[in-house]
């Protein structure tokens, strides 16, 4: 879109009925690095690409734990995302203080959306420049929502936001119908593959992506929202990267692949369990 005389402030409509400042805020979301979410009946997985400003700096945190049953991944202005996460955390704490029960995700996203809408109707404010993928569990199961700077929110089976998210969306569109019945591990694998799609050629390593999961286990216990640890993620990546290689490599490499394949399938068995179990020491690892 191009500069025009109706885009100076958020309280000016264009003749076509558009609020350009709000649309520009949505552009800011598209500039951020990718964030992907997918859900099944019992679990929700969030994954994002971590890009560091430079080799010297650490990467920005894009996934935040809001409560045991809710987490959020952001794309866009990370500072706005941080502030909104703090708001969400505070709402969850206040709700459970008053009602002694967890805040339903659906309520939280509405509050968030209303907060965003206020910024589209005040001349002294600007819209939040961040898109949020909110993953959560409530009594009606697992949910994934997308909150935009415009104040709209939508529920999704799977979605991707940020730069080069279209590649991930294409992959998700092909596969989303099977997600509802996917197991937790299959869902995490799909999330990693979707992340790889956004990298467009770059190798997928656990150092450039972050994965988080929340869900209900088969035995009925809750798996609280947590970020998977780097080693676990690397093992999962290795498991499906090896499977991908035989298609591209020459047949001469068959022997070492056979050995690798056996090793990788062992690794695929145990990563999810330790990742979920070793949360004891740092409960708010996020």
């Amino acid at each position: 879109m191009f500069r025009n005389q109706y885009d100076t402030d958020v309280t000016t409509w264009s003749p076509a009925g558009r609020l350009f400042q709000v649309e520009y805020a949505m552009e800011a979301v598209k500039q951020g690095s990718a964030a992907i979410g997918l859900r099944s009946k019992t679990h929700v997985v969030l994954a994002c690409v971590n890009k560091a400003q430079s080799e010297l700096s650490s990467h920005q945190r894009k996934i935040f734990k809001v409560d045991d049953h809710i987490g959020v991944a952001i794309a866009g202005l990370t500072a706005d995302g941080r502030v909104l996460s703090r708001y969400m955390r505070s709402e969850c704490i206040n709700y459970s203080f008053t009602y002694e029960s967890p805040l339903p995700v659906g309520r939280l996203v509405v509050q968030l959306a209303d907060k965003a809408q206020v910024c589209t109707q005040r001349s002294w404010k600007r819209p939040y420049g961040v898109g949020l993928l909110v993953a959560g569990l409530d009594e009606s199961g697992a949910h994934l929502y997308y909150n935009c700077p415009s104040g709209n929110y939508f529920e999704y089976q799977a979605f991707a936001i940020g730069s080069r998210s279209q590649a991930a969306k294409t992959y998700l569109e092909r596969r989303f119908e099977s997600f509802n019945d996917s197991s937790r591990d299959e869902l995490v694998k799909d999330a990693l593959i979707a992340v790889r799609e956004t990298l467009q050629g770059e190798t997928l390593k656990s150092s450039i992506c972050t994965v988080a999961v929340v869900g209900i286990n088969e035995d009925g216990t809750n798996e609280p929202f947590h970020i998977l640890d780097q080693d676990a993620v690397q093992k999962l990546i290795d498991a499906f990267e090896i499977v991908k290689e035989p298609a591209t490599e020459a047949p001469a490499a068959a022997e070492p692949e056979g050995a690798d394949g056996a090793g990788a399938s062992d690794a695929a068995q145990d990563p999810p369990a330790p990742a979920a179990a070793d949360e004891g020491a740092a409960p708010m690892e996020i």
Partner: protein
Amino acid sequence: MSRFSPYDNNGGSCVAIAGADYCVIASDTRMSTGYNILTRDHSKIYKLADKCILASSGFQADMKALQKLLAARHLIYQHQHNKQMSCPAMGQLLSNTLYYKRFFPYYTFNVLGGLDNEGKGCVYTYDAVGSYERVGYSAQGSGSVLIMPFLDNQLKSPSPLLLPAQDAVTPLSQSEAIDLVKTCFASATERDIHTVSSRVLFLPKYMVYLMFFFLLPVMPSLGNVENVAF
């Protein structure tokens, strides 16, 4: 005409003893009002953090409100600092929270127990408005006047005025300390109508693992329930 009183005393006693690498926190489970018993089954102990446990006696409504407030503050702390609160930090927070209501106090007599940053047992004892002190052992509640002198006799904590500074924690082993606490409650029960030792909740804290070892389904939050004497 008797004026409406916003307070009530629900009785009961709490004890905590600090050891070299453990802390025993115990309370009885009777909740009463006047000469009546409301329940025989109410725990006065609340786990605030991995290494920090609050035991309070007094007005149970204020106690519940205080527990909820501290738990919410702890959650905020965890979000901001990415770790659990230490016992000394929680000790200061509790004091500030109590003083905040200096002119309409929480009618709670608290004992905070846990492990400090070095892994040694620590016990903090409070009055209703937040005056607090780190000690080697303490008792609060209706039976405290009976239990405290007994603990003073048994544990002989060195004076904090001595130089060089001596450790207030007891050299007793964890099981000896638990036996001592059982005796405290047995004695207090003899003479204090508000304290009863048919069931006493312990939370011995060797390290985090042992704490969970003692979890029983009867008291889902925490505790090792023992029948004492009666």
